[in-house]
């Protein structure tokens, strides 16, 4: 447990979702040593999370086959908690010190959670969260599920839940129907997306899709039993076993920030080769802009080639990337969160779930830092990953600090890493 493992790679990739896998494979093409680190027990990220039934998409198997045949060294269950110049510190069973020549960050995104009364009840989950649990083995057959939030993700989750045998009671979309229709039309006009949309519509047939609709409160004794929704200004209550909420994705930029990478409008700023403001550090996938699977793959490939000085190969993919970037631009403006959602939390609704800090204790402060110091908001184990984006949405606060360790780690890991980092800093 106390020993520290040392690894050295020409190219280290953090995050084994589609962007990271594509980046690692592209980098490995040049014959250099490539390490692919991920904090999950298996590679695949969220979208390609290992799945029992409901079939892993065939596109994924092609990439996994390539990965298995490649020389890429996969380091699973490794939580990166510190970054210094040219090296990373991670924790798995033991502490791991990783030194690298080039670094590719493919840290993905997480869900934005909006506080409302009852959101802390067991079985109220993220939409992506529920999907992740089903992919991790949770049996939801026959369970009644309400899915709330916004954008295409909740539709995908609804279709998936139904396929796995759940009874999807309804989909609550906060956007209005005309806005939804405009979005659908724009997506249909993009070649390749129309077939996807048609098949999704088929999978969702018969499931009520309520627009102008959101959860107001969840109720239950020890777990959610019903949800009150607002629809066109009217409220009604629906019984359910799970409430899955998905209000946008937010990029995981903590590690890029710790590496010193500049951000542009909340996302990691990159040049055309996916290189960040720090030479030798690249970024691909959702941290550079929420754009989905295809864009993540091509950005990953570009980063992998660029990191191994194969500019020609990287350049060759620029046009493909530009095509997929259209989706980003459409998604960016299609589903703005409505101001009514800021009023869902009552004074006693918890905003910080780690430290159980209610809305009323936060609202008396002028900013995130003051709120943290006075209430311990954002100072629990998740380190503000859940409540800081919520506070940003609710109060308009700028959240600006990131410090090591990026995740809570064992003292033995800190102790094992400390002398090495100190010597190099």
């Amino acid at each position, binding site marked *: 447990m106390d020993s520290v493992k040392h690894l050295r790679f020409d190219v280290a990739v953090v995050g084994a979702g589609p962007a990271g896998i594509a980046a690692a494979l592209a980098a490995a093409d040049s014959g250099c040593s490539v390490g692919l680190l991920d904090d*999950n*027990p298996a590679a695949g990220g969220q979208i390609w999370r290992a799945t*029992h039934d409901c079939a892993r998409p065939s596109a994924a198997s092609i990439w996994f086959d390539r990965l298995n045949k490649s020389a890429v060294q996969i380091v699973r269950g490794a939580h990166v908690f510190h970054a210094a110049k040219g090296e990373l510190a991670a924790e798995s069973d033991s502490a791991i010190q990783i030194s690298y020549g080039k670094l590719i960050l493919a840290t993905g995104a997480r869900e934005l959670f909006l506080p409302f009364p009852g959101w802390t009840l067991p079985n109220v989950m993220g939409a992506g969260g529920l999907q992740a649990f089903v992919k991790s083995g*949770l049996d939801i057959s026959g369970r009644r599920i309400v899915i709330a939030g916004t954008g295409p993700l909740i539709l995908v989750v609804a279709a998936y839940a139904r396929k796995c045998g759940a009874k999807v009671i309804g989909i609550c979309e906060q956007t209005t129907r005309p806005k939804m229709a405009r979005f659908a039309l724009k997506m249909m006009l993009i070649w390749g997306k129309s077939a996807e949309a048609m098949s999704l519509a088929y999978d969702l047939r018969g499931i009520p899709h309520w627009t102008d609709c959101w959860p107001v409160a969840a109720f239950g004794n020890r777990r959610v039993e019903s949800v009150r929704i607002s629809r066109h200004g009217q409220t009604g209550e629906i019984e359910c076993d799970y409430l899955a909420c998905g209000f946008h994705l937010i990029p995981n930029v903590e590690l890029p920030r710790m590496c010193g990478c500049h951000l542009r409008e909340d996302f990691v700023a990159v040049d055309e080769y996916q290189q960040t403001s720090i030479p030798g550090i690249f970024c691909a996938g959702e941290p550079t802009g929420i754009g989905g699977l295809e864009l993540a793959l091509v950005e990953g490939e570009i980063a992998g080639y660029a990191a191994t000085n194969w500019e020609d190969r990287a350049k060759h993919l620029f046009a493909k990337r530009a095509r997929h970037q259209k989706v980003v631009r459409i998604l960016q403006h299609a589903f703005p969160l409505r101001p009514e959602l800021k009023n869902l939390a009552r004074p006693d609704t918890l905003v910080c779930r780690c430290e159980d800090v209610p809305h009323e204790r936060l609202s008396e402060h002028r900013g995130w830092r003051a709120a943290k110091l006075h209430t311990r908001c954002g100072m*629990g184990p*998740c380190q503000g990953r859940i409540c800081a984006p919520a506070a940003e949405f609710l109060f308009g606060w700028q959240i600006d600090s990131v410090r090591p360790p990026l995740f809570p780690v064992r003292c033995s890991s800190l102790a094992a890493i400390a002398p090495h980092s100190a010597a190099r800093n």
Partner: protein
Amino acid sequence: MSESISVRVNGKLVTVRDGSSVAVAVLASGATCRASVTGQPRSPLCGMGTCFECRVAINGEPQRRSCQVLCEANMEIEANG
């Protein structure tokens, strides 16, 4: 075909599909993962290792994120929700 695996959650035998996460075993057992600092029962929110709501003790080691650990035969899981 995936095979099943048995673990204990608060002493109760729970059988899940092989490859399931510990969080799934806790959910399947009907237990909740942890008690919050003010004593509320909590269960997983994010499913991807960021929210820390799924913390349980696994084979005596506390504060493990159960969504990030796979079930192993005869694992002892303590969920204090």
